[in-house]
């Protein structure tokens, strides 16, 4: 290759080097897709670990899960959603998810009963190569009673071995110490447009970090809560 030709390739190589830097920076953390949450979690969800997001209905749990999946898919990673809600038919709203930026063909969607959810997640994590596996137990009743602690430990072990981020969405805290990071959503306040007839516009809620985050002591002193605003219209 001539010198001129080599110089011509420098911009492309530089772009790749930047990508490598970014990869290095984000090692150990994965963006949640929500900037405020990334700040709260010191960079995002921990990789190769279990994370938990809890909250009551209409506090934005699903929106955060889908945002995380959308970012992982955009980065070229394999993702899966184990959907144990919706009465066995799955709770995912495909149109709304696509509108939220989720590339549907790249998502492995497993609809199952709550009793099969852990086994399904275990299989997906064990396959290796998945960047994010989301486990939706939001409407699965009291998952804490349903799932033995040993099952979470086994799933955590699999996530650590395969380098997978396992994100569990529940209505009440379930994972306990098995979760490397946990976010609790609360104070969900719906907003309606009232210019004319009422029109549902979105939800404002607060996210509190209840587990995980930065190991840096100075960062720990920051307020472990952030406000989030979700919309339901484009």
């Amino acid at each position, binding site marked *: 290759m001539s010198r001129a030709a080599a110089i011509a390739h420098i911009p*492309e190589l530089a*772009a790749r080097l*930047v*990508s*490598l830097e*970014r*990869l290095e920076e984000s090692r150990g953390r994965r963006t949640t897709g*929500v900037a405020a949450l990334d700040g709260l979690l010191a960079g995002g969800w921990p990789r190769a670990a279990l994370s938990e997001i809890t909250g*009551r*209905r*209409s506090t*934005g*749990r*699903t*929106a955060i899960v*889908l*945002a995380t999946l*959308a970012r992982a898919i*955009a*980065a*070229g*990673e394999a993702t899966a959603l184990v959907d144990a*809600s*919706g*009465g066995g*038919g*799955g*709770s*995912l*709203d*495909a*149109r*709304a998810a696509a509108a*939220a*930026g*989720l590339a*549907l*063909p*790249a*998502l*492995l*969607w*497993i*609809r*199952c009963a709550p009793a099969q959810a852990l*086994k*399904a997640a275990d*299989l997906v994590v064990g*396959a*290796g*190569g998945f960047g994010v596996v989301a486990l939706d137990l*939001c409407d699965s009743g009291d998952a804490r009673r349903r799932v033995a602690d040993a099952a979470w430990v086994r799933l955590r072990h699999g996530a650590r071995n395969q380098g997978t981020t396992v994100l569990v969405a529940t209505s009440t805290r379930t994972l306990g110490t098995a979760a490397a990071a946990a976010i609790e959503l609360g104070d*969900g306040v719906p907003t*309606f447009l009232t210019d004319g007839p009422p*029109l*549902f516009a979105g*939800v404002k809620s607060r996210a509190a970090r209840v587990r995980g985050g930065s190991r840096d002591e100075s960062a720990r002193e920051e307020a472990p809560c952030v406000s*989030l605003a*979700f919309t339901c219209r*484009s």
Partner: protein
Amino acid sequence: MRLACVYVPQLALQAALRRTPEARDEPAGLLETEPWKGSVPPAMSSARRSRATLDALETAGAGKKPRVTQLEARARRAGVRPGMTAAQARAVSASIRLYTATAADREAGAAALADVGYAFAPRVDSGDDGERVFFDCADLGQLYPYGETAIAQAVQAHAARLGLGARVAIASSKGIARVATRAHELAVVPAGAAGAREFLAPLPVELLTDDATLRAAFRRWGTRTAGAIAALPVDAVALRLGPRGADVARLACGKDDEPFVPRLAPDALEEAVDLDYPVYEIEPLTFVLRGLVDRALARLAGRSLACAGMTLRLSLDPRGLDVRTVPLAAPTRDAKTLLELVRLDLARRPPDAAVVGARIIVEPARVRATQLDMLRPAGPAPDRLATTLARLAALVGPENVGAPATVDSWREQAVAVTPYVPPPAPPAGALAATAAAPAMRLTVRRKRPPEEIEVIMGRDGPTALRGSETTARVLVTAGPYRLSGEWWQPPATAATTSADPNNDAPGGWAHEYWDVHASDGAVYRLHRDARDGRFYLDGYYD
């Protein structure tokens, strides 16, 4: 060209033994009422049997009582001889196990023998006697740099993995390779006519031809070995013994012009078993099918292929067939997964009658190969992903595993599941483009099917609702939003094209939707069916 010949002596007995690999270390024999003359496979119909076997059957009055026709070496050493009845054989050797080879066994055995060839070459000549296959092994030198003996050993080892004890010879032509397999367990005949002539020279005449007339003629002339025949002028032999005699003389000289007629592998791979008694329950049937699946997967593994689809054909008692296709999400070689899928399918739709025979037809496929990238995330390995998808399908049902897809329908809850394909690697520089955060957009967590609820209506809409999981006052109401559809389609079509299992009454649907903020803090999406006035909870925003 260098041809490898794989010869499985007593293929019928070995085919029967494939069913019971645990009995492989015990003396065994094959019982037959008469020499097999089945219609399938065609190559087997002309199977040549040893002279001793045929003589034994003739003297024993074939067709009246089952006689031992083929014997494993241990049984022969124990004193059992062809032509004995089962009682006589057991009197000589109490530990002998006697089998009967069904047509399904023979067919599967012949197919497995062909697969030995297909594991090493894309085209295989199945020969004319059904006990041998030939394939071109000239290109295998790069894979086996230690020579042709290593190739022959590898072929023999692969045959053993498929449950076949094979003799292997490598030569420059079919005829010479065939003779070499008669003489040796493992043989490599030197290339060229001179080398072949030298190799064949010490072999007895009986190994050169099956023709008893020719054997007798050569014996009468005092020629006992191939070398002695090679010393005779071919023209003179042809004059006295005809063209078949000339062929033998040329073969003894290391010259053979038998054509090599290779064929591609069949599209599907089959394994079958005929049962001695009807099976009424699923678990015993699964046990029977396990052997079939294991053998089929072993054959696929030898060709570096996986199972992309499986058809199960059950013969019912007293007559009838039950044919079912077991759906597979992706090619797999995991026997446990395949059996689980079969078991689930059988449990979902049991056969109408007892099963007396089973046949699996496996569709081979290559597992997707991928090239890893240093700068991009590595996805799941194709074979492991395929196995995982199949296991997930076995766990939750194949209709519940895949990628979600939107449906061209006005129904809000319509969704489809399509085959999952891992995302392609993004182009270089795409990682930086992902910095833009997607909108934090709420979606409706759907209930499928929508749950029927009680709603108290006020002047401006719902004022309270009660369902199985929710009882709440309504604080704010937005709506109604009226939607209707499929009224333009005839009733039957509307009922079948809907993607929602909770289909409405045929002939279209009409709903009035509300978004309601309830006193439990959630924002629900509910609708009233305009046709019957009932309320349904579609889900809630989250």
